[in-house]
């Protein structure tokens, strides 16, 4: 297809125009294709606002400032701005200028009114509010701050002069204290000077002793380590012995418990009184027999042939 020159030129110019319009809208932060919504706010002080500055709602850019003109009748500044049509601006909404003019980052903040209120029509006017201009706040509070600062400085001045007086008066406590501290320091210093030789000899001795200990340890290293190994082995053996001793005592406990409860021969021996009774009566019998024997031995010995020999 042969494209005529007219068509080429026409297409190029139209494309350029479209790019131009869209580009300008893009950098103005306006929606590329949707239409925008124009509103006017009347400020007493525009605070450095210029066309092209961003308009924000809750910190989100929604449009930009179109014109900033001084109104001759009202003596105020009329600021016209465009915002995205999706933002619904109702009665009770207000605008404020914020940002720091000195840094060049001035913008307009829009605070939306309640959703159920009437919508402000296209080209309508909205109210203005106090901006959160940090720099402005600082400037407004500066006189107060300077006054306070000067008070603080005055106080400091008094403190400094009082201290000076205290120091310069020969009879002041402060001066006396300083003098006594100075005296103590001098004494301490003289003490240190006079005892310097002894102190240094003590330190030398301590150093010597430490050195000897070190040498001793280093020289007898193997012997010491063997000693420690032996000791450790002995302790291990002792541990084993103690364990078996514990076991023996446990067994003995068990045995005694059995004895107590009357189990086995020993138990019965310990716990049954009948044997004792029998033994007692047997001993009584033996006693009576011995008494009888003592009284009349013949009675018993006469029967014995051996005795007849005598």
């Amino acid at each position, binding site marked *: 297809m042969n494209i005529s020159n007219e068509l080429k030129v026409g297409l190029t110019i139209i494309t350029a125009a479209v790019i131009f319009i869209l*580009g300008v809208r893009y*950098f103005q932060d306006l929606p590329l294709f949707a239409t925008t919504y124009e509103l006017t706010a009347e400020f007493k002080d525009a605070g450095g606002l210029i066309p092209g500055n961003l308009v924000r709602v809750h910190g989100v*850019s929604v449009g*930009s400032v179109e014109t900033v003109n001084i109104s001759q009748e009202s003596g105020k500044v009329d600021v016209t701005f465009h915002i995205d049509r999706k933002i619904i601006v109702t009665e009770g909404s207000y605008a404020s200028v914020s940002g720091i003019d000195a840094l060049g980052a001035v913008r307009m903040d829009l605070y939306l009114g309640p959703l159920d209120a009437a919508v402000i029509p296209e080209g309508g006017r909205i109210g203005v509010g106090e901006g959160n201009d940090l720099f402005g706040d600082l400037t407004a509070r500066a006189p107060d701050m300077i006054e306070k600062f000067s008070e603080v400085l005055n106080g400091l001045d008094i403190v400094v002069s009082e201290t000076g007086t205290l120091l310069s008066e020969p009879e002041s406590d402060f001066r006396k204290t300083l003098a006594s501290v100075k005296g103590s320091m001098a004494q301490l210093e003289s003490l240190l000077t006079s005892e310097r030789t002894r102190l240094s000899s003590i330190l030398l001795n301590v150093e010597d002793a430490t050195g000897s200990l070190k040498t001793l340890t280093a020289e007898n290293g193997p012997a010491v380590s063997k000693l420690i190994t032996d000791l450790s082995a002995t302790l291990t053996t002792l541990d084993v012995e103690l364990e078996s001793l514990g076991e023996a005592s446990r067994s003995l406990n068990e045995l005694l418990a059995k004895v107590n409860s009357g189990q086995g021969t020993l138990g019965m021996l310990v716990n049954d009184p009948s044997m004792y009774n029998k033994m007692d009566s047997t001993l009584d019998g033996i006693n009576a027999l011995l008494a009888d024997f003592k009284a009349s031995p013949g009675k018993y010995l006469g029967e014995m042939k051996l005795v007849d020999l005598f």
Partner: protein
Amino acid sequence: MKTHSSGFHPSVLILYAKKLILDPIHSFGRYSQLLFRAFGAVPEFGTYRKNLWEQMIHVGIDSMPIVMLAAAFSGAVTTVQTSYQLVSPLIPKSIIGSIVVPSMVLELGAVVTGFILAGRVGARIAAELGTMRVTEQIDAIEAMGLNSIGYLIVPRVIAGIVMFPVLYIAACFVGIGGGMLVGHIGGFVSIGEFVDGAREYFQPFDPIFGMIKCLVFGFIITSVSCFKGYYTRGGAEGVGKATTEAAVASCVFLLLADLVLAATLL
């Protein structure tokens, strides 16, 4: 006449004065006369209609690739150098965007395009018209009863005025895009930060000012080149001289106009 003590003849001074003061005024007078006649020929649309489209192709569309290339590089270089100069941690990265975009829109877009057109189109126009003049084709056109100025100069100047803004838009588009892309790829500034910064300081008057510059530059480059070509004298050598002079004079007047416009409109 008494000779000057240093052997300097007073008539030489007069010669210099004529060369420095009178000749430029003389040239300006002829230039104004040519323009006057050209403006007079604008209503004769039928004379140059066909030629106009051809010139628009030559001036505008054929220059598009080289203009876009130069603009892309100037945008990219501006981004890289701005980020190189931003060493303070207190300055946000988005400042790069707010420097590159106005630079392109206000100055680089128009001036880079202007220089390229002065070299490319200015030289071409002067060479074309110069050759036509020395080969007496212009006289032939006149002999045929056609208005040579209306036929040759008007379409070229109109093409310059119309197509320069188109080239400027292409240059800005590609330059800002190139800056953004290089900033992003090189890790100097993200596209989001770049656009944020550009929006923060964008003024709607900037592109309008750029367009005004373009109209003026387009007019200067084509009209100066036409003037140099139309009044060529001295055969092939004259054509070469006219071509060089057209490119140089276009650049000089373009810079002058740039300063005057910036001083008066900004």
